[in-house]
């Protein structure tokens, strides 16, 4: 008996497939499927349901992809997303309403408004470190604004990507919201198409590729990137609280693999040893004597990043500067919380975004010197942090440090505050989202001017005369007296 061999044909997602997807979504968008308030609400409600009914599966996928502790998954990915959905559900009616705009004498009589409309068919490309949140949080904004959406989750977090693909099909309207899985070839195929907006979360190298592709179609982009987020630590503070907040922002956020994790610390030579001791104490309390075995720390995502981080630690300039940690487990892709003291500014670890559990400390003579250290790199980070009780220092910090967002006396919490725009500047990106900013970023704000037929200003029209010129000058000047004088002058002439 001959067994027919089954050849499994892998479905390739190429340019043609991408074109088809966009064509379908565009047709559905043009047909008006995503515009109604009802549709948008139904999708947001479905997303909430999706999370409520699948929390264990989501937590499991994140554990597979990143060994993410359950609490981090539940809170930083699921709870944050639920909050985002909840806010959109509550505010959507208000967000969708036109905003009245004031009009002035120059356009009298008239009324004006700014109307929000969806951009159309948008592409969300997400990252691997918060693969659930960074995929669906932008999607919440895109849905709220009434768009059709393609989501491309990161292939570096494959369990989450597959789960997302399945959940979106099961819960959301897949004629208007699609997930495309894959890696570079699939992303390139998507980037060849014409989108009405692209929101990309990731690194600067790929961001340049995304923006260059968008340029071909004049597609506006939001780029959520990263950078080296510094923490300035002054003396005279509540050191215990500061240390814990730094630990929480660094190792408590995917083990340092987060765009707004504290990247490095700047403190004075005098204060450094106190700071290091405080870290050692709390690190042991939180993660135990053998942090490589702690279940409360994510692992390094893959062997590429493990090798990259190892290289940073092994550099000659730096390997002798380790004052805490440094242990590694290559098989399980684990690196212990590691602190390095007095690291040279020209070392590798100080010249790329670390994105891992290594925390270098740079020493300065006076805390005010920190600002030069931060600004000298010429690259603006996504976040910058300062711990101090000195109000003048706080003022100088806000005035001179340019970053996406700043936090004084804490780290990373601004991410959870939807009334603050979340985004970068310079090398850390462009555009912002969260809360209403998400709705705005996926909307076109259309200006509308309603004019009356009455009071047609004859000065607009030829034949042009000196008199009309004088009247125009008065009119633009906006003063009633000026206009009256010009009109009288006109009658005199």
């Amino acid at each position, binding site marked *: 008996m001959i067994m027919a061999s089954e050849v499994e044909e892998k479905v390739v997602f190429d340019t043609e497939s991408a074109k088809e997807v966009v064509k379908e979504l565009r047709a559905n968008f043009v047909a008006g499927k995503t515009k109604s308030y009802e549709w948008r609400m139904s999708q947001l409600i479905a997303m909430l349901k999706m999370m409520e009914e699948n929390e264990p599966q989501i937590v499991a996928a994140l554990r597979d992809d990143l060994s993410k502790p359950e609490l981090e998954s539940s809170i930083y990915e699921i709870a944050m997303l639920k909050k985002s959905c909840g806010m959109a559900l509550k505010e959507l009616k208000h967000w969708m309403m036109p905003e009245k705009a004031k009009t002035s004498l120059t356009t009298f009589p008239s009324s004006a408004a700014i109307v929000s409309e969806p951009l159309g068919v948008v592409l969300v490309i997400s990252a691997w470190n918060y693969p659930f949140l960074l995929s669906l949080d932008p999607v919440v904004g895109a849905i709220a604004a009434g768009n059709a959406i393609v989501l491309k989750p990161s292939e570096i977090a494959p369990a989450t990507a597959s789960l997302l693909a399945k959940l979106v099909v099961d819960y959301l309207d897949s004629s208007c919201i699609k997930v495309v899985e894959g890696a570079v070839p699939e992303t390139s195929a998507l980037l060849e198409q014409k989108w009405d907006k692209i929101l990309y979360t990731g690194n600067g190298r790929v961001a340049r590729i995304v923006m260059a592709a968008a340029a071909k179609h004049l597609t506006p982009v939001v780029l959520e990137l990263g950078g080296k987020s510094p923490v300035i630590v002054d003396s005279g503070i509540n050191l215990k609280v500061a240390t814990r907040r730094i630990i929480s922002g660094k190792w408590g956020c995917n083990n340092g693999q987060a765009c707004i994790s504290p990247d490095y610390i700047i403190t004075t030579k005098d204060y450094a040893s106190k700071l290091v001791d405080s870290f050692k104490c709390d690190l042991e309390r939180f993660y135990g004597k053998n942090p490589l075995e702690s279940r409360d720390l994510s692992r390094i995502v893959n062997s590429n990043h493990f090798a990259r981080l190892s290289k940073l630690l092994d550099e000659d300039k730096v390997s002798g500067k380790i004052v805490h940690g440094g242990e590694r487990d290559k098989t399980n892709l684990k690196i212990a919380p590691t602190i390095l003291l007095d690291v040279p500014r020209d070392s590798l670890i100080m010249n790329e975004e670390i994105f891992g559990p290594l925390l270098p400390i740079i020493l300065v003579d006076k805390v005010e010197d920190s600002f030069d250290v931060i600004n000298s790199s010429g690259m603006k980070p996504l976040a910058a942090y300062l711990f101090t009780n000195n109000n003048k220092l706080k003022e100088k910090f806000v005035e001179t440090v340019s970053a996406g967002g700043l936090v004084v006396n804490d780290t990373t919490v601004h991410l959870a505050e939807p009334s603050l725009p979340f985004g970068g500047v310079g090398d850390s990106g462009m555009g912002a989202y969260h809360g209403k900013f998400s709705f705005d970023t996926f909307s076109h704000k259309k200006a*509308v001017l309603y004019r009356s*037929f009455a009071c047609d200003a004859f000065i607009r029209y030829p034949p042009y005369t000196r008199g009309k010129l004088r009247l125009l000058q008065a009119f633009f000047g906006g003063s009633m007296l000026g206009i009256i004088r010009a009109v009288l002058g006109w009658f005199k002439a």
Partner: protein
Amino acid sequence: MEESVAVAELRETFKSGRTRSVAWRKNQLRALIDLINENEDSIFKALHQDLGKHPVESYRDEVGVILKSASYTLSCLDKWVAPRKSELPWLLFPAKGEVQPEPLGVVLIFASWNFPITLALDPLIGAISAGNTVLLKPSELAPACLSFLIETIPHYLDNKAIKVVGGRVEVAERLLQLKWDKIFFTGSPRVGRLVMAAAARYLTPVTLELGAKCPAIVDILSSPFKTKVAAKRIVGGKWGPCTGQACISIDYLLVEEKFASTLIELLKKYIKRFYGENIKDLKSIARIVNKHNFQRLHNLLKDPNVAASVVYGGSVDEDKLVIEPTILLDPPLDSEIMTEEIFGPLLPIITVKKIEESIDFINSKPNPLVIYAFTEDETFKKRILSETSSGTVTFNDSMIQFLCDTLPFGGVGQSGFGRYHGKYSFDTFSHEKAVLHRGFFPELEPRYPPWTNFKLMFIKLAYKFDYLGLILLMMGLKKS
């Protein structure tokens, strides 16, 4: 290379912090107002030389606009630079959240040739008000205005912070090789793509003010008076600003068949009254900017099917680079005049059976900067707003939305992205920095590992702002 030396100086100046001070910004704006007031005649002369604009047109569309924009900015600047407070939840208490605008740094502004003063200085006002240093590259296609700006600006403005550079395409290309903190571009979609592609290399944010065919829907109005006003506004709006060479010029009209001839007669009447009876007696109207554009426009008319649809005008004067106001009735829809942005004094009228068909017609073309609609039908207005997409919609007038400082001015899709005018100019050249201030007390223990179910429950409740639940949990009255 001269340009990189200029940019290096602009960066040094920015680093020095001088341009951040509100006093500096206000001084520059006042100096700009002085520049305009003290050189009005030179500006009129340059605009007449480059484009044949009459002083009244120049005042209305360029001089007046800049004076108004600078004064408005001066009067609002203190308000705009102040941080915007945001309300934070009790959970984060005590905390203060705000959004602090800050300058982006060194910005590059490309101006177009059709409103060479306005399109150079209005973005400049925005960039200065936001505290940046600026390199301005006006268009070489309006050479007298370019010379004017190059010669005059250094006498009034801080020339270590604001520089003007002339030259042709090669200069623009060299500028685009450098790193900027923002690029503001007004021009064609073709060049817009090149600008954005160059900006991508440095992740430089851009604002692109482009164009596309701006339609005007002309519905039947309830009285002859209103119809006359509409016709005047169409004529004044089409040929008044730079003889149709404006990104927001009415490109074509959409009218019901039965109304077309009435409208055409009215349009003819006002064309003759405003601009003259024939090409020899044309006045109060600009000319075509150069031979290249003249040829382009003339060629649009050479298509025999298009030529056959001319119902008024059509004469050209190649020496003077003048084309008289020309109306066409139903030229073929696949002719170039109906597929490309006209940017000149030719006005096709497309007839439809019912005016509502205009919506589908407009949607078959790329999103324009503006859709104009002359109608009193409230239902139709709502349909236009919700079923079409454009940068702006203006009802019952033309061009005037440009003067509204409280409305964002910009495109969508093919007509560009980003916006300016009024506070939007300030915003477009700013980074809105989020700032969160926290106190050291109280401390929330559940933030920290080792993780337990209690801590998980606590944070879940905290995220929902379920303060009652939190209290119960902490009192041991809620299961964790």
